[in-house]
Each structure stands twice: as C-alpha cells, then as structure tokens.
C-alpha cells in the first residue's frame, strides 16, 4: 500500500510504510548513509503529514521486516496484546500524539497501554513529536524495576557505576568503585565492561565486587557486561551473577551479528533465574541498545535507524529487564553526526522505551570522532533528567579509559540530581546516609571523620 501527500504542485508518494517512516524521520547521518533520509525538508514534512493520517492498526497489518524470516517481527506481532491496545485502536498516528500529550493520558493509563503498543507505533508517533513532546510524554510514565534497589521511581535518578579499566586490573577497578560510591553512584548497578571476553576474568571480577557488597552491606547489584555466552559459562562455574547482560538490536540478522538469538537469551534468562540470588519477582536482565546497530551490521532491512532501535526494545521487553539503556552517542558520527542528532536520538529512545514499558536509562555519551562535546552532554543529561530517565552512567571524570569514549561522570550525576531535586534509589540513599557519604541535607559530602572512611580503609580490593 502506498501513502501520499499533495503540497501545492508537488505530490509526494511513499511506496510503503517503511519508506514513509524513514522519510518522516528527523534528519540524521545513519539514514543518510543508508539512502533512506528525506531528500528535502519539504519531503520530510510531507511524509509526516501523510504519517499523521495512518491508522495505528495499519502497523499490525503491514510489517516492515518480513514475519516469515525475522523472529523479532514474530515476537512483536505474536506478543501484541489486543485488549491493552483497544483504547487507542481507532486512532491515527496523529491522534495518538495528541492523546499522549492530553490530560486523559495519565501515567497509570499509559502503563496499562504499553503491552498494546508495538515498537513501530512508538517510533511512528515519536517522529511527529518535538523534543518537548518526547519529554512531556515520557515524564508521565514511570516504569519501576527491582533487584536490591528499586529503580525508576518518580523523583529518583539512579546511576550505574562504570569502573572500567583497560586491562581489567582488579585494584584499578576497585579504586574506581570506591570513588564512585563516595560520589553517591552505583544504585542502578556496578557494571564493568570487560576488556577481554574471558569467563575466568569475569568470574574473578564478580567475586570481588560481591565480597565488597557483602562486607559493607551495599544495596546494589553487579554485572560484568560480557557476551551472554561468556556469562553462561560464569553461571555454569557457580559465579555470583546478579544480572545477565547483552547488547541487542531490532532484527534477527542484527542480533545474529551480536552472536545472539531469542533462544539463547531465553536460556540465559532461565539460567540466571535458577541462581536464586534475587528477591522474589526481581528483574534479572540488563540490555544495551543504540541507533545504528542494525545498519552497521547490514541488517536494517531498509528501515530507518530509529524504528530499528525501537524494535530492539521488543527484544528487551520479553525479559522484564532491570535495566535497559541506549548507548546513544557511542556508535559514532556515521549514525549520529553531532550534538543535535545525539540529543534528539537520546530523547526518542528514552520516550519509545518507556512507552513500551521498559525501565529506560541512557548512556549520555559521545566519541572523539563525533562533532559533540561536554556542553552537548550537559544538555542531554538535563533534558533526560526532566523526562524522568531511570538512570544514567557514572564514569570517573566522564572518561572511559577502556572503551575510549566520554559518558557522564559521578559529578554529572550529582549535578543533575541537585539541579532537578532528584534522589538516588531509596535503599541506596539510606545506605549513603548510614555510611555518612550523604549528609543530613541530602548532599553527597563524605568526611574523613565519617563512617565512609572505613570503606577506604578496608575496602580497596
């Protein structure tokens, strides 16, 4: 089925839904690279005008990636909840935007709606939304996940402590963890990206963090962000695995490029559940995503990168994860060229993730080959804080010395909490107070004379 919009003498025709979505997307490098972007500003708006009239049910009938050959499409359609979808079933994409921003669309209503929304619907409506719309709608939705901390509560902002080291050195990682704890970070998790994909090293790292956690009774969870097959080996060796991590993308072929499929993720989910390390009903998975992943694997099926990103959230949603974050500026300028594109993408990903019912965080980040700097990250961090983002990264000095990119720092997490009146996860906040890292006025101000000093005396591993 084709879609059209007449503007004066020009009649814009879009042969299918896939093309219509791509042309309606805000301009960005990856869609230009893929040859999918609108060729003019007028064509882009024409596509949006046509898209606004498309009925949401259309997305259940016209697939962007074939059902027969793609397990992500099958997952999306087979798990679609018609009853949850019913309240918006008669809306067009344009109606849906108006509805999301209306007084009727309360947080409670939107939470119930989530299983009825497909990634393609979320992506489509986001293309009609300005940045402020993405913030205003996302802000209404709170998705709460739990392990030893409760993440995503309104008025809270958690931080993943990311103490990476270029050779996975235990002392170096330990020092960065202590620094992060002293700056009030670590309530989302303590998550290490390993320099090499070794089960033996991952096991050792997890054991050390678990020792530290138990010795000081720190309410958090740990994760070594190795490939899922490596984590399965660690589980098989009886390692203290709290969370299974995996990068995921929006098509079967893109996931294959990551070395995973749904069966493997199912296996990992079931294995980590079997460890019984978490309280009943806890969330046990951690996923990272990012626009451009499918295109970079040559597995985007002619679909724009933002829609493919939203499809990755369907994969994540299957496992009721504790943490999901877009690593928004990591993939590079071929996909998101500058600060403007990164900021837009970060807000889109956060909105789409939350609308689909995910506990959405963000790695607010950029690489040195992108046209972006700290000022751009300050902007995105602040905007996401306003939008109700569940967590951000805490990297020492914003400089990840292992992955070679810049994320948000411990200081940045303190800044955004202070500027917006946000607090850490409740369990972690109590711990910060007990250890006198947080003072009576809820400021993170550890003192040499306080209990926090004990962490240093005995904690360096």
């Amino acid at each position, binding site marked *: 089925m084709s879609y059209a919009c007449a503007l004066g003498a020009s009649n814009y025709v879009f042969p299918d839904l896939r093309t219509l979505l791509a042309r309606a997307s805000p301009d960005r490098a990856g869609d230009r690279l893929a040859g999918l972007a609108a060729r003019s500003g007028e064509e882009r708006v024409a596509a949006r005008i046509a898209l606004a009239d498309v009925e949401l049910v259309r997305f259940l009938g016209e697939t962007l990636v074939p059902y027969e050959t793609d397990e992500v499409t099958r997952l999306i359609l087979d798990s679609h909840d018609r009853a949850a979808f019913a309240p918006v079933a008669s809306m067009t994409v344009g109606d849906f935007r108006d509805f999301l921003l209306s007084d009727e669309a309360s947080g409670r209503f939107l939470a119930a709606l989530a299983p009825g929304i497909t990634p393609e619907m979320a992506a489509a409506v986001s293309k009609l939304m300005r940045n402020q719309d993405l913030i205003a709608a996302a802000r209404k939705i709170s998705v709460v996940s739990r392990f030893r901390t409760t993440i995503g509560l309104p008025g809270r902002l958690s931080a993943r402590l990311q103490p990476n080291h270029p050779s996975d050195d235990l002392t170096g990682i330990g020092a960065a963890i202590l620094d992060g704890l002293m700056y009030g970070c670590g309530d989302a998790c303590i998550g290490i990206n390993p320099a090499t994909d070794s089960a*033996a090293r991952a096991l050792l790292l997890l054991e050390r963090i678990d020792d530290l956690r138990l010795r000081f009774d720190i309410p958090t969870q740990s994760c070594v962000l190795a490939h899922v097959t490596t984590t399965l080996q660690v589980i098989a060796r009886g390692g203290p695995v709290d969370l299974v991590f995996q990068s995921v993308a929006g098509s079967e072929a893109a996931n294959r490029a990551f070395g995973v499929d749904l069966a493997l993720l199912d296996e990992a989910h079931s294995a980590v559940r079997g460890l019984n390390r978490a309280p009943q009903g806890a969330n046990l998975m951690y996923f990272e995503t990012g626009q451009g992943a499918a295109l970079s694997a040559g597995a985007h099926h002619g679909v724009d990168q933002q829609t493919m990103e939203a499809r990755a959230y369907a994969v994540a949603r299957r496992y009721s994860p504790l943490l999901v974050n877009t690593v928004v500026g990591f993939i590079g*300028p071929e996909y998101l060229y500058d600060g403007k594109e990164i900021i837009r993408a970060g807000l889109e990903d956060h909105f789409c993730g939350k609308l689909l019912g995910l506990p959405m965080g963000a790695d607010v980040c950029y690489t*040195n080959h992108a046209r972006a700097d700290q000022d751009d990250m300050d902007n995105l961090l602040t905007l996401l804080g306003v939008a109700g983002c569940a967590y951000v990264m805490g990297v020492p000095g914003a400089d990840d010395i292992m992955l070679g990119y810049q994320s948000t720092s411990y200081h940045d997490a303190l800044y955004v909490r202070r500027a917006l009146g946000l607090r850490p996860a409740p369990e972690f906040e109590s711990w910060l107070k007990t250890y006198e890292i947080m003072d009576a006025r809820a400021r993170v101000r550890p003192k040499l004379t306080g209990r926090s000093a004990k962490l240093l005396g005995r904690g360096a591993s």
Partner: protein
Amino acid sequence: MTSAQEDFWAFLRAATPARIALGRTGDSLPTRRVLDFQLAHEQARDAVHAELDADALGEELSAWTPAIVHSEAADRTSFLQRPDLGRALSPHSAKALIPGNYDVTIVIADGLSAAAAQTLAPTVCRMLLAQDFVFAPPVVAVQARVALGDEIAVAQGARMVVMLIGERPGLSACRSLGAYVTFDPRPGVTTDAGRNCVSNIRPGGLSAEEASSRILAIMRLAQTIKATGTRLKEDAALALTAPQNIS
C-alpha cells in the same frame, strides 16, 4: 584562594589511570579538572584526523615485502562519514595483491587512530611474523575499517586475517591498538560475531608481548577448530598455550 576541595581518598589515584578522586566545588568539578578534560578532548580529536604514513610503515617492515592498499574512502572526512567505503578495497589496490596459499595475513590499518597503527602495530606484527605459520606478505591499509581485512585476505588467498587497527582515541589514550582475528573471512558475510578481539594494546594497557601471546593463542585455536568469534573463547585459547596466564 579556591573553593575547590581535594578528596581525602586522593591516594587511590595511584591505582588507576582513570580520572578518580578529582575533588569538587559543591557538586561540580574544580576549574583545573575542567580544563584538563578539554585539553585531552581536543588532542583526541586531532588524533582522529591525523593521516597514516603508509610508506614509512612499509619501510619498517621491508624485510617481509609488505603491500600498501587503500580503501574506497578517499580522505579522512569521507572515511569518518562512510563506513561502507572504509570496508571496500579500491579496485587499484585489489589488483596490487598477489594471490597465494597462506595460513594467515596480517593487516596494519589506520582505523580511527593512525598514530596507534604507526607506532604500536609494527612491534606486534613482527612478533607474530616470527611464529610458525605460513604468512602472506603483510599489508598496510589506509582509510581502513576492520572488515576491509576480509577482502584483503580473500585477495591474498589467506585462510585467516589478523587486523591490527587503530582504535577510536579516548581521552587518556589517543594511541591504542586493537587486534581482530577472523578465520575464513568472507567479505560482506562475516560479522563481528565471527571475530575475536584483543583490545587496548598500548602503553598503560596491554603490552605488545602480552597482546601478541593472546593473539597467537587465538590464532592457534582458530586453526584447530576452524572458527573464530563467539565459538572461540579466549579462555580456551589461552588454556591450550599458557594456562598460567588465565588468572
């Protein structure tokens, strides 16, 4: 006089090159730390845009009669924005490679840090070339992405490719090398899941000696199981050669 305060755990800084214990003024960074960061960032951006001196590398490895090839990306700007061009061998370069029958080819590529390839790759390359494999003449590749190695290997008739490539510069490390080992590389078909990576080869990270022994372990196991990527775990590779290195 300054309002900025040192952290009382500043002694931990000796334990890691990470930017820990930076101190604070309120919840924010002290002025000096902000400026340090800006300087490092600008230096890293300069590193991204630096060009590889392929002829100098060629001379350094002249004992092995290396070939110099170019991708389809004509310059740095096009390389940064068009990864597809960086993965394709220029037609002229394809003709320059002589087909044979080899176990392995080693490619030194600029990637995102020409300086890393220029200064760190020759040592690793020489260490590998001293080993007991049938090596194709090494290749120096300009404006190259990792997957360019697949096409080079096929053109040379090599069953495995080891790509020594400049990693994206970080603030603390403008010069860091990555090694990607791919068995039976197939241009356009092989994905990242089919490769094994040894990263952070640089002063302060993985030494050339340690990196070479890890790469070699992967190469040996790859030759035995006829695969790389998620089917080959580095633990297993190291266990075959040097079990004491695991922990």
